[in-house]
């Protein structure tokens, strides 16, 4: 089920909310939790009920291993290693098996069959979340909770599908706290506020940019210079508004249940360096990569060379986490390399003007997203080729009187976005891009707005506008980009 669907907004969410608080109001707290777990599993199974046994088995296994790690002192390390290997094996089987076999075949000229398995929904998210739980249990950082609370920690539907990736220690106490079992209108107001913003970001903004991004990447070999830049920028905006919109919705829905989820985005495109970007983009994933890969590898404690190696390994694995493909791996490599360069640069004491730092950072991110978005390596190269090639330039007809002499150099004049901008919404492409820049650079993000929002008619009207605009745009339902990761 999608957050941005009629069935979720008008049926699932209100019914679950009402029934959950009703059970709590009659003192059936455990039953209410059981109901919430069941509702979350129903939410999960809506796409494909076949995925359900996988998440259930994973949950049961990790709960008991965590319990063992909490209580026993013998063979703890072996047990942790084994459990992590099994978790990663499950993920690898579904997500990476075909990728490895394809490359193995290519390398050794073999013809081993592929499995073409459908990726169980959210497997990357719930696997990482539970690995973190196991490591925390091993370190003695988890408290003892029963299976019901643990199940809620893993399956809680607002964050189940695409995060934020939450820590055991920030969720379990909230589920256990009795005061969270009562309706809290302050949280409901905040929840409605941020959910509406998220819905608007996803349905109105991201889905509009997706039209041009999809059109551009679908015809990658034929893009002219302007079209290639418009396609890549559209995807850059789409991805941000899509994923941060989803996170806002998740945070808002969780607040309705009195649960506070961690923020995941903090105006990432305002970043002035790549390090700054990773402190603002998908914060809970960055936190996971830092705590469970980078630091265990040695972090920055073993000298500069090891630090650089650790950064590269962490980001290449981060790239692979997003998808089984060389484009994702290369995207991770690019970010790792950029972080290494940034570290060397900072060590040398160099500083850039603020605007130049932003310009370089933003363009690097935009270019790297091309690899992230392209279906195939060739498509990425073709889009990038068009972005930086002067061989195929089309300018608007309106410029022909002043720049007509450029025709001698192969520049043509005409409909310069013919491949990606269809009539109608395409007429406003550049207005949208301009507004996109304004919003990402000069507006407060939704989490900042949530901190400062006042309960008055003005904000009620503003939120009602966003909510209405979001709901009436639901007719073009599309999935969240991060569902695939």
């Amino acid at each position, binding site marked *: 089920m999608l957050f941005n669907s009629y069935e979720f907004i008008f049926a699932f969410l209100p019914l679950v909310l009402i029934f959950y608080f009703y059970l709590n109001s009659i003192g059936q707290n455990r039953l209410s939790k059981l109901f919430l777990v069941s509702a979350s599993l129903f939410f999960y199974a809506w796409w494909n009920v076949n995925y359900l046994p996988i998440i259930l088995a994973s949950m049961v296994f990790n709960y008991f291993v965590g319990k063992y790690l909490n209580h026993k002192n013998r063979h703890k390390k072996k047990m942790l290693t084994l459990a992590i290997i099994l978790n990663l094996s499950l993920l690898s089987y579904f997500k990476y098996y075909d990728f490895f076999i394809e490359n193995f075949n290519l390398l050794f000229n073999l013809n081993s069959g592929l499995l073409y398995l459908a990726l169980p929904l959210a497997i990357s998210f719930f696997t990482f979340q539970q690995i973190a739980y196991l490591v925390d249990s091993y370190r003695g950082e988890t408290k003892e909770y029963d299976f019901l609370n643990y199940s809620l920690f893993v399956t809680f539907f607002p964050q189940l599908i695409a995060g934020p990736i939450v820590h055991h220690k920030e969720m379990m106490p909230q589920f256990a706290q009795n005061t969270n079992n009562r309706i809290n*209108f*302050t949280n*409901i*107001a905040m929840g*409605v506020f941020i959910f*509406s913003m998220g819905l608007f970001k996803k349905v109105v903004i991201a889905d509009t940019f997706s039209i041009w991004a999809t059109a551009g990447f679908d*015809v990658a070999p*034929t893009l002219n210079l302007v079209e290639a830049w418009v396609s890549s920028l559209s995807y850059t905006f789409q991805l941000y508004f899509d994923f941060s919109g989803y996170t806002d919705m998740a945070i808002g829905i969780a607040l309705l249940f009195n649960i506070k989820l961690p923020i995941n985005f903090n105006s990432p495109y305002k970043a002035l360096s790549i390090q700054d970007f990773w402190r603002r983009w998908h914060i809970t994933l960055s936190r996971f990569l830092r705590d469970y890969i980078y630091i265990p590898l040695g972090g920055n404690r073993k000298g500069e060379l090891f630090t650089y190696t650790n950064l590269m390994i962490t980001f290449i694995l981060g790239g692979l986490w997003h998808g089984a493909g060389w484009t994702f791996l290369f995207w991770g490599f690019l970010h790792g390399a950029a972080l290494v360069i940034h570290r060397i640069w900072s060590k040398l004491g160099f500083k850039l003007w603020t605007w130049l730092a932003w310009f370089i950072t933003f363009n690097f991110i935009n270019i790297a997203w091309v690899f992230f978005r392209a279906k195939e390596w060739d498509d990425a190269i073709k889009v990038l080729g068009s972005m930086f090639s002067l061989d195929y330039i089309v300018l608007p*007809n309106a410029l022909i009187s002043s720049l007509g002499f450029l025709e001698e150099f192969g520049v*043509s004049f*005409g*409909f310069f976005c*013919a*491949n990606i901008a269809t009539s*109608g*919404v395409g007429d406003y492409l550049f207005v949208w891009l301009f507004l996109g820049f304004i919003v990402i650079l000069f507006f407060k993000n939704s989490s900042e707005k949530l901190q400062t929002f006042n*309960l*008055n*008619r003005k*904000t*009620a*009207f503003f*939120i*009602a*506008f966003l*909510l*209405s*605009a979001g*709901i*009436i*745009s639901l*007719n*073009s*339902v599309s999935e969240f980009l991060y569902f695939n990761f």
Partner: protein
Amino acid sequence: MKSHQWVKWVLFFTMINFALLGVVNYVVDPFKVFGSNFLPYQVQMNERFVKIEYIKKNHDKFNAYLFGSSRIGTTDPALIEQYIPNSKFYNFTVSSANLYDYKLHLEYFIKKQYPINTLYLQLDVDDMSIYGHQDADYLSKLHPEVTNEFTTLYYMKYLFGFFPMNTRVKIIDNMHMKKSKRRDIKKGTWSLASKEASLLKNCDEYVKNVSSFNTKHRRIRKYTTAEFSMKALRTIVKLCRKNNIKLYVFTSPHNQNKMDTFFLDDYNKYLRNISEITSFYDFTGYNSVTKDNCNYYEMSHYRPQVAKLIAARIFNDSSIAVPYDFGKYIEKGSMSGKE
């Protein structure tokens, strides 16, 4: 303000927004599904809905149909009727149609037992990989009776959907009373009187001013898959055979500029796919009709005079001089294995 009051205000304002939107959608009726007719000029419409509503009331007047995208919309039913005795054609052209539309509409007519003994079916090679329509495409939504959708839900979507572009277009059209395009719902056809006049007056001048004739096109029509379209075509052929419907299939004569957007291999594959299912008349390719821009309003839509040539070729009318290179009969299976 207290939190619960704020939440109530949000709900109140949201409902006001929906009410206002509903009123605007009903009054402007951007897709002509409510039939409110507050605005006099109603060219922008959901043809699929409007035509089914018309056929529901008038199906006894017809026994034959022209199916195709907007490109067949300039074909006068009388033109075909002259070749088929006792036929009464209705031009069921619908914009951006693909085989999804043809299959579902044919199934609907058969299910409803509307008289139908001839089907004149035009296929667009450039759209062969497209099957169906996006949910958000409200201009192309099929009638709820055709798709077995809940009628109330269908109307609710039109009442509470947000259609700024379509609303704007309808209002502007009515403000300027822009009447360049006319639809004849009784025949199902459309016409462009002012463009036709300009073409008759000075074709070269007209062609010079239409951007699609003067843009250098690149080959972008990739062969993806026509699997669904071919499956639908197979179903149509079977349905026609089963219900004694005489089926004429032909491909649109794409203007040379449109042809410039095809990859040759892909284009050939589509033709081969069609020939594996049925015999048909092929009017695509670079020929004396498609290479003459004066036969088109723009690179997508041909003029009524081309429709006459198509019919003359299909019905072997020797009284009309059809260019020798325009249209050839492709026997079923004759293209198999050919590259």
